[in-house]
């Protein structure tokens, strides 16, 4: 199975001529088959970030509360009480298209390992999903598999899945996006890093055995799909959440001792990337003997061992003489434990198998001379700002609202989250559907974390810079809307083929927008993931910089949800101009996907949000919902549906057309319920924050400003209908 190494094979492995020449230079000879494999995965887009690195550097990553920014397995921020939150989001897009259940399941497994490898107990999972058109026959099966996979894995490991988002668009027909996020908690002084140290220290393999799973998965994740992808696909990785659960418990148990020098999960490119990265970061060498790697199959080659992406495995460097302690723990949990090598002072990775040296590569150039491209970019042309007064409303408010609430992008996701265990752990304060961000309390403490994922890809397509900014701002807004102080984000940059200047231009612009928002909102990026080449037959996805936001509440009891209580005044905070460009109303009611997306004014965003948060913490705001997809009327309807309490809305101002006022998607707004609008608005005016009373809550109906009345039951039926009806009839398991 080992083939002759040459230019042609290198190309098959995803290395271009220039990259292959650099390999020859570094090695000073023709690399062995295994060595070529190592180079090709380490230099794949997925592992090397060769197209994105120059841009990612622009993101702000620092704040006084940031303990570890990007570069570690996950980001780490201090949250008070001597604790740190450790979190990251990661994509499993390609595998989920090939095999939705296992692709999504192993995506959850992978991100969990990134977090507990740093010493954190995972306390919450979220997922950001994008699917093709519901009318595409394949979409339903992908949704079914992905949702079952996420639930199947997360429910079994016992980490609550507390939030996420779902969009549909034909641009994802051939490339669904599955971005999974995990959040964990550790004491700030017990965080485990991956830099290897200590010449002679044992390198230990723990977890599941190695099979021929997913070989070249990392290179696959760095390539476009074409009609032959189904043939070329590697053996699909199957997740084993039970083993993962054991691995979590065993690792945490070992981490409570002082045996570990460094630890890293085996993710993409498995043993190769974990060993190369650990040794590289520590500036040491590493020697591996593959004869000691626990194998699931017979006759595996060095190449296969090094590139396998078998799941539920970790690599660690132990302190000398601590092997017995560690071994006992892993044996207790019935997990494989094997010393497969040692740290050396050679600065090289040396791989032995069956008495032969199969690879011997200097680590410094393998890491430092990884390709880095400043690919050409082309700016997305700006779209025209639409004049709301010239867009006709043919449906009216009542019918428009009902249609919007029932559309795939706005309808209830209960069908989805009802399959995710959101309460295990007993700390979930706000479950899906209750608040703009999930709220999870820390066991034994008052403190809680608020968590959200956000991105509006249609804005990003129309204006990637504004879209990137908006995604960060919306995450910040969602955390603020529960009363949390936003601390940091993780991101998952999902884009098309970076070799196309328009796509690279989208990427660069999105980063610019994100960076500006992170800066203005004190909301740094602490971890992230890039997924490029999301294209099938030349057709790319919508640019999708998914943002995972994390915030903290000192007292979980102060968190508010969006369920509307009875007999309160309803106030909208922030200015409503009636921005219809790229709105869902424009798309769903008028069939148009055009116009400039709503602009984000970061100073206004911050002022509005800081005000809202202060009024939540003072207890004045009893319910709060940010205004996003669908605009003001949809936001109020969602609040009413959440609690079953209706509202009577007042007339809109004369200078804005009704449909634009109620369905426009102006940014930086919140709908809040307060006992006394007059006094509330006096405070807001003093703070320079626009606030307008738009109605009063109570009863079982929503009464619209044009006199239309809809019962909450009717709205709920409209809202809840789509998913179950769409999924019915396909119970394939």
């Amino acid at each position, binding site marked *: 199975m080992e083939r002759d190494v040459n230019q042609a094979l290198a190309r098959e492995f995803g290395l271009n001529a220039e990259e292959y020449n650099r390999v020859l230079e570094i090695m000073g000879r023709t690399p062995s088959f295994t060595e070529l494999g190592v180079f090709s995965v380490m230099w794949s887009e997925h592992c090397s970030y060769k197209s994105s690195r120059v841009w990612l550097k622009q993101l702000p990553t620092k704040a006084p509360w940031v303990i570890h920014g990007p570069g570690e397995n996950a980001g780490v921020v201090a949250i008070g009480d001597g604790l740190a939150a450790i979190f990251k989001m990661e994509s499993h897009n390609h595998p989920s298209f090939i095999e939705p259940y296992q692709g999504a399941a192993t995506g959850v497994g992978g991100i969990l390992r990134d977090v507990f490898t740093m010493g954190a107990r995972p306390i919450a999972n979220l997922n950001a999903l994008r699917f093709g058109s519901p009318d595409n026959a394949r979409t339903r099966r992908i949704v079914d598999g992905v949702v079952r996979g996420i639930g199947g894995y997360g429910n079994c490991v*016992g980490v609550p899945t507390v939030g996420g988002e779902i969009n549909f668009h034909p641009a994802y027909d051939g490339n669904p996006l599955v971005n999974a996020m995990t959040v964990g908690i550790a004491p700030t002084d017990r965080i485990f890093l991956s830099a290897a140290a200590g010449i002679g220290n044992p390198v230990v393999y723990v977890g599941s055995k190695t099979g021929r799973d997913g070989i070249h998965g990392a290179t696959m994740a760095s390539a476009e799909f074409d009609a032959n992808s189904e043939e070329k696909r590697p053996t699909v990785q199957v997740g084993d*959440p*039970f*083993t993962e*659960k054991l691995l979590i418990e065993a690792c945490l148990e070992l981490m409570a001792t002082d045996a570990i020098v460094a630890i890293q999960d085996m993710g993409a490119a498995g043993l190769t990337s974990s060993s190369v990265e650990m040794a590289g970061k520590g500036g040491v060498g590493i020697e591996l003997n593959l004869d000691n790697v626990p194998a699931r199959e017979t006759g595996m080659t060095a190449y296969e061992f090094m590139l396998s992406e078998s799941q539920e495995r970790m690599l660690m460097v132990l302190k000398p003489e601590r092997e017995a302690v560690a071994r006992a723990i892993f044996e207790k949990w019935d997990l494989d434990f094997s010393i497969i090598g040692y740290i050396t002072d050679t600065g090289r990775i040396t791989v032995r198998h069956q008495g032969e040296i199969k690879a011997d590569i200097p680590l410094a150039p393998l890491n430092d001379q990884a390709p880095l491209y400043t690919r050409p970019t082309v700016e997305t042309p700006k779209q025209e700002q639409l004049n709301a007064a010239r867009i006709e409303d043919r449906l009216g408010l009542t019918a428009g609202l009902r249609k919007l609430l029932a559309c795939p992008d706005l309808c209830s996701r209960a069908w989805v989250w009802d399959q*995710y265990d959101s*309460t295990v752990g*007993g700390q979930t304060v706000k479950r899906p559907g209750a608040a703009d961000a999930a709220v999870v309390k820390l066991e034994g403490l008052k403190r809680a974390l608020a968590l959200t994922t956000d991105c509006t890809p249609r804005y990003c397509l129309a204006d990637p810079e504004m879209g990137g900014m908006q995604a960060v701002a919306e995450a910040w807004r969602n955390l603020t809307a529960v009363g949390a102080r936003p601390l940091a984000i993780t991101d998952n940059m999902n884009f098309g083929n970076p070799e196309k200047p328009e796509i690279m231009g989208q990427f660069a612009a999105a980063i610019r927008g994100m960076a500006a928002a992170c800066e203005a909102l004190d909301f740094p990026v602490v971890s992230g993931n890039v997924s490029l080449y999301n294209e099938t037959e030349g057709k790319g996805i919508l640019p999708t910089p998914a943002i995972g936001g994390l915030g903290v509440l000192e007292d979980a*009891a102060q968190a508010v949800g969006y369920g509307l209580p009875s007999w309160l005044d309803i106030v909208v905070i922030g200015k409503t101009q009636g921005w219809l460009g790229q709105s869902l109303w424009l798309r769903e009611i008028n069939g148009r996907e055009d116009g400039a997306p709503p602009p984000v004014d970061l100073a206004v965003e911050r002022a509005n949000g800081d005000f809202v948060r202060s009024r939540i913490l003072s207890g004045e705001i009893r319910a709060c919902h940010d205004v996003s997809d669908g605009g003001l009327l949809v936001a109020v309807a969602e609040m009413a549906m959440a609690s079953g309490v209706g509202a009577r809305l007042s007339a809109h101002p004369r200078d804005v057309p009704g449909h634009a006022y109620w369905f426009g998607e102006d940014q930086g707004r919140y709908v809040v319920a307060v006992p006394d609008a007059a006094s509330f608005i006096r405070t807001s005016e003093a703070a320079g924050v626009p606030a307008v009373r738009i109605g009063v809550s109570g009863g079982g109906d929503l009464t619209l400003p044009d006199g239309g009345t809809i019962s909450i039951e009717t709205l709920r039926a409209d809202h809840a209908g789509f998913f179950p009806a769409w999924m019915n009839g396909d119970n394939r398991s």
Partner: protein
Amino acid sequence: MKAGIVVFPGINRERDMAIALEQSSGEKPRMIWHKETDLSGLDLVVIPGGFSFGDYLRCGAMAARSPVMAAIHAHATRGGYILGVCNGFQILTEAGLLPGALLRNAALRFLSMDCQLTVERADTVFTKRYQKGQTFRSVMAHGDGNFFADDATLDRLEGEGLVAFRYAGENLNGSARAIAGVYSPNLRVLGLMPHPEDLVDPLMGGTDGKPLFDALAAA
């Protein structure tokens, strides 16, 4: 009542259960690893929820045959109290300590949502802080909660008053006669699918499950 929680590999609601027990009794329950065999000194043995052994083959099948089970059988024979929730209920049926079996949910999907339970009798050590006929809210989170037993067994359970709880309103998982929990003939072993331990704090949405733990703590 001195309580212990059995931890099988893959169990994941042991922490929730410990919090609920401690909150009512003021005492930390003993955590019992599945390879232990000595349960002496315990009045109440709790088998919590989760995915013991990954729920592979059948939910609870492998746990029901592991070393600690002999001691649990002995505890039952001694007249000790046993509470099995969710996976714990499945394990108790697999071990033959409770009748019936839990099949896949009728709709073949995992169900994670609130449900309402009716208290069938309020004179047991588990339910004396509830009222007969009362309904209370609980959280369910399971893929295999569809209670099954043959008609003769169901008739006997009903005839002998061994049905502990039924689903009020919609019977989402398809359980026979809407049964959500059952007792052993001596009323000292209780198994139920929903999780009372996840509603013992107003912050988490309510305290409907707390009377069960208060009753056990006072017993």
